[in-house]
């Protein structure tokens, strides 16, 4: 019914039933897009169009994510790394999604996606320096990686703005905004997603729903919604749910979503997965979840599932994985050595880059501090020996 004139609000038909006029979330949880089931079974015809080399590449990135997570946690325990957020258990979710991005695409990470940043081209050395708290590590413009959104949701409006700009430009690029299941609870996320819909911004909202935002389970305290994917409906954008432990399903879902996004349709992809490690190295998950639950997911971890596929396809021979692991560990060793060799520019690092040019007062503060340190070697001693929280 047009009511004769153009309306600012779509009216719909009149209806005397409140039930008919109520929009509810579905009674049943929507399915997850899955190509390989938990037992490693699949229909060979339904697999995405990836050649053997690409399939092995996916596997290798997943192994690298696992190795980086294990070794970064070990380094943190030894005092050689700051707080670290492991992505163990989410290797398929992290790798399948970022592998589906194109070279021209931008990644707006949130911290639990080491391999995604590496796939973009960020050097492993820089990833280590980032977790050691070195600002230089955030210089990843050449690799189209934005600094991680440690303050939850802060990157969403920025990423939407960046996507908006990409959409106005010549390049067919998108911005992939990676986030967790807590981010959609923030004001930044909700206003950003709405904004993206209005601006037709080529933004992909990629949610790794790993069940917990630190201690709070997704379904008991984070949201009354059953899914993250459905939230797009409120903003007029699509949402896809995918089995986040099935790397091929993630790859295929994100590949297809990416094309939709590039056409000016912001889209949510919710990857349903599980964090097997602590939230960060500062967290003790035994306080808020049962060992049974962790064990259930440990049996369904994604690397084993994909290994089964590669073995049944005859792509992965005996000894191949060991060779890969050896090579990846060596990569890690080399990156660690390079990170250890990083030389700070000293206190000047504090003062440069606040503005384009150092204003007189900052120049004065820098000079005063340099003179102070020269005259007070005990200040260096204090810093070296201060107990570190």
């Amino acid at each position: 019914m047009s009511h004769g004139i153009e309306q600012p609000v779509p009216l719909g038909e009149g209806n005397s039933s409140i039930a008919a006029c109520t929009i509810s979330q579905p009674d049943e949880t929507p399915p997850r897009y899955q190509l390989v089931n938990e037992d490693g079974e699949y229909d060979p015809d339904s697999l995405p169009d990836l050649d053997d080399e690409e399939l092995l590449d996916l596997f290798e990135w997943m192994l690298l994510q696992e190795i980086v997570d294990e070794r970064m946690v070990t380094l943190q325990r030894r005092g050689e790394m700051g707080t670290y957020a492991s992505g163990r258990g989410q290797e398929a979710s992290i790798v399948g999604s970022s592998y589906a991005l194109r070279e021209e695409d931008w990644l707006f990470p949130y911290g639990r996606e080491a391999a995604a940043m590496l796939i973009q081209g960020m050097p492993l050395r820089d990833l280590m320096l980032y977790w050691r708290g070195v600002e230089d590590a955030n210089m990843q413009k050449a690799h189209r990686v934005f600094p991680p959104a440690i303050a939850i949701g802060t990157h969403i409006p920025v990423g939407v703005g960046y996507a908006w700009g990409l959409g106005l430009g010549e390049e067919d690029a998108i911005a992939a905004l990676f986030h967790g299941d807590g981010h959609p609870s923030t004001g930044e996320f909700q206003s950003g997603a709405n904004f993206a819909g209005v601006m037709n911004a080529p933004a992909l909202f990629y949610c790794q729903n790993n069940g917990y935002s630190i201690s709070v389970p997704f379904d008991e305290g984070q949201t009354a919604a059953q899914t993250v994917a459905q939230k797009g409906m409120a903003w007029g954008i699509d949402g896809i749910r995918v089995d986040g432990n099935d790397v091929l399903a993630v790859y295929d879902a994100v590949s297809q979503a990416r094309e939709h996004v590039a056409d000016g349709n912001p889209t949510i992809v919710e990857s349903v997965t599980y964090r097997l490690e602590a939230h960060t190295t500062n967290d003790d998950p035994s306080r808020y979840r049962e060992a049974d639950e962790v064990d259930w997911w440990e049996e369904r971890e994604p690397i084993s599932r994909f290994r089964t596929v590669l073995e049944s396809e005859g792509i992965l021979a005996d000894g191949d994985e060991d060779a890969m692991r050896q090579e990846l560990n060596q990569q890690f060793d080399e990156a660690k050595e390079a990170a250890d060799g990083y030389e700070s520019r000293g206190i000047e690092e504090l003062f440069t880059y606040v503005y384009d040019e150092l204003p007189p007062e900052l120049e004065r503060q820098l000079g005063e501090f340099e003179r102070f340190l020269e005259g007070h070697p005990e200040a260096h001693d204090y810093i070296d020996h201060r107990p570190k929280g």
Partner: protein
Amino acid sequence: MTDANRTLVEAVNDGLHTAMAADERVIVYGEDVGDNGGVFRATDGLIEAFGDERVVDTPIAEISIVGSAVGLSMAGFRPVAEIQFSGFIPPVFNQLVSMASRIRWRTRGEHNAPMVVRAPYGGGVRALEHHSESLESAYAHVPGLQVVIPGTPYDTKGLLQSAIDDPDPVLFLEPKLHYRAGRQEVPDGQYSVPLGDAAVRRKGTDVTVISWGSMMPPTMEAVDSLEDRRDVDVEVIDVRTLSPLDRETIVESIKKTGKATVVHEGPKSGGFAAELVATLNERALMYLEAPIHRVTGFDVPIPMLGMEDYYLPNPPRIAAGIERTLAGEGGV
């Protein structure tokens, strides 16, 4: 009651237990405050003691954590909301400025917001980016918003009780670097330390050093080393509440010593030291015998952990600042 029984974070925890037991209107909520007991364990054991209707895990939604505290307090509760790290306060600035701080004023006293927002603040614990900010001067600038920053375990529990009892909103910033750094006797049971009263931590006659929160322990350490090295008698004031500010104690101290150094962790320009210096110019200019020095963070964002120790004022820097004050050196 035993000597030196509680750390600062244990004083927060005990203060919350005590206040919740005494007043069923008190409810505690925020991210991970329930089963997890807070990321620093400040709310440990509360959910077991008071149940999940009074100790509530929230979504990651700082805006609503603080905004809903205004609503809950208007509805008759005494909310104590936690923001997990001070770096997550900026998104709630709108709710603090536009709602919490002026609900009494804009309704001509019909409504008020007896609410507390707790947050660990400051650097030095090797935390991630956006976890270490010290922007208390910005919050203290908001009319109607009270800003409390305890520096000792005893004060923490007593000031928290006063904040909870106060009929108007309080931002309660806890120096997380010192959460477990030392112990002090903290009585069981309820007591309060009034808002708006600075504490004289050490009596002296030659110079007054003014600080609060995270900078109190390094300030005391600097004063100790200075008094060991030279014949000087230093008075130290712990401001404790930036708003309301106890100007009398500070002015009276400077009338006695004639010299002052102000120490704070946040950036220098526009920092809270500027308010203290202006107050002393207004009320004690003729007693001043030397320029007042400020030892503060630099006018830069607090860096990530790689360089944070160079940003934070430390005892050698504080001691050098006090010596410049004593020498009557001008300039900056």
